[in-house]
């Protein structure tokens, strides 16, 4: 949705004309040069019309997952974007399912989530445009140190889940239609095991709460590595099955994607600003900032937007090809 609240008095210094905005797309790293340009344009053009033409003073609504928000990543990197464009980013942490639903209702301009299947569905239904691969980390299976089911050392995530199910050791499921929950359900399906019974608890809560709950009960759970690292000092859970970053199975990879809300479906989506945001966050500068973001001395997210390879699959539903388009 476009919030054209022009806060001219506050934002004059960083006002951008349309021309500068396009330059900003190109020069992700040259923040200072752009700031200087912005200063010039603020002096040269002061009329109402120019103010309408730029994005300055507008608000971008980003719905995203708890894992990107709770790790503090977005707060850390957003200041740069806000300064560069003179805009405000309203980041709403909702979980993948809810974030996509808000976007579907036209209540967001851009959406950053981590469940490729749900993203593809969102794109296929026409709600999202210009999907880009953004960054990744991985999932890990964590549990109490004494490991009652004995899954430590298994190099298959599905085997680990089957072992937990056979031992009927307590397992906490997010149960909230989030990206992590979706991944967990996919893993159970891949393992050919139907989870159920007293040992399997759906708590319907965010990752932090799930880790706390598992910690209290001495239970296993599936966590994204970022949230686990950011919370590790508070809990006694340990990583029992590693994800691909530490040499674990590829099935535990956790890619994040970003999409703009389709202005053809939701007329009042702030598409310009959404595309500026996607341009910025996939630029080398912001990608560096993502890879430099650390918590407890560890890198939480690994950028993957900047690549020499064309990587066409990021723009289309997984496995899509033009040959199969007229099925």
């Amino acid at each position, binding site marked *: *949705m*476009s*919030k054209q609240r022009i806060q001219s008095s506050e934002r004059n210094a960083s006002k951008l004309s349309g021309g500068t905005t396009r330059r900003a797309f190109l020069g992700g790293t040259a923040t200072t040069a752009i700031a200087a340009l912005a200063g010039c344009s603020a002096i040269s053009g002061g009329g109402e019309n120019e103010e309408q033409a730029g994005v300055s003073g507008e608000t971008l*609504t980003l719905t995203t997952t*708890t894992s990107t928000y*709770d790790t503090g990543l*977005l*707060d*850390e*990197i*957003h*200041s740069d974007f*806000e300064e560069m464009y003179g805009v*405000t*980013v*309203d*980041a*709403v*942490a*909702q979980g993948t399912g809810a974030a996509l639903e808000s976007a579907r*209702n*036209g*209540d967001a301009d851009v959406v950053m989530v981590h469940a490729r299947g749900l993203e593809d569905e969102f794109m296929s239904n026409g709600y999202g445009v210009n999907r880009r691969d953004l960054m990744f980390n991985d999932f890990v299976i964590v549990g109490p140190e004494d490991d009652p089911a004995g899954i430590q050392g298994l190099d298959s995530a599905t085997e680990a889940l089957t072992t937990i199910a056979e031992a009927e050791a307590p397992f906490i499921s997010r149960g909230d239609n989030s990206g992590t929950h979706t991944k967990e359900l996919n893993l159970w399906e891949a393992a050919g095991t139907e989870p159920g019974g007293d040992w399997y608890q759906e708590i319907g*809560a*965010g990752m*932090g*709460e799930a*880790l*706390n709950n598992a*910690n209290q009960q001495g239970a296993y759970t599936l966590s994204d590595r970022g949230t686990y690292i*950011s*919370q590790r000092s*508070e*809990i006694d859970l340990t990583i029992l099955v590693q994800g691909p970053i530490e040499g674990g199975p590829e099935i535990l990879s956790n890619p994040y994607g970003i999409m703009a809300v389709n202005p053809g479906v*939701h007329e*009042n989506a702030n598409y310009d600003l959404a595309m500026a945001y996607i341009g910025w966050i996939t630029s080398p500068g912001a990608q560096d900032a993502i890879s430099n973001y650390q918590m407890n001395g560890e890198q939480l997210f690994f950028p993957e937007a900047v690549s020499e390879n064309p990587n066409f699959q990021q723009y289309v539903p997984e496995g899509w090809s033009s040959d199969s388009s007229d099925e």
Partner: protein
Amino acid sequence: MSPDAVVHLLPALVELPFREGYVRSIIYVSLYVSGTAVVLSTLFSIPVAIVMGFADFPGKQLVKSIINTGMGFPSVVVGLLVLFVVSNQGPLGPLDLIFTTEAMIMSQFVLATPPITAISLAAITGVNENVRDAARALGGTRLDVALVVIKEARYGIATAVLAGFGRAISEVGSVLIVGGNITSASGISKTRTLTTAIQLEARQGQYNTAMLLGAVLLVLVLSINAVVVRFGDEGSMNR
């Protein structure tokens, strides 16, 4: 006490592990949203309570039961209803109210109105019949009688307003849904209240900071209650 004074006083009392201005801004948003909602709902509720206290009309019992049911209405459900109204697809969609304090005020208005109406009504109907008769006997018009009754019932009405405020400032379900719990990247709250901040800390397992924020909320509500009760006392001494 102005909200500003409270906003500056409270963080000074407890050392919180947050960025400069963060706690102050969430206290401000909490007070602004709940305060505005309660003022609006008081302006709406008291006339309703007076009309219901003085007039008899068909369906009065039904209205009463609806109000009483409203007191127990879950805030999450209210949040969802307001979301449907203010969402881009809803009737107020073009106003762009989703994820704003205005939407939060709307939902807290809905939450605070039933307790304020119901308790005010109980206070007004509880005023001794003799007082009304005396006012009438002294030649008072209907308005005079109403004013006398309100004056007698002011303690009850103050309790009603406090109950409404308590419901508004302590609820987390609806403000989380329609407000989105947003802060700017610089850590200044846009739609984050004390309750949603507590929820966020608890979600991250930061139980200590969550408890600290809970204590701030408690102190805030206590001081507001103290101020309101004190006003009531002064009123009775000046009589």
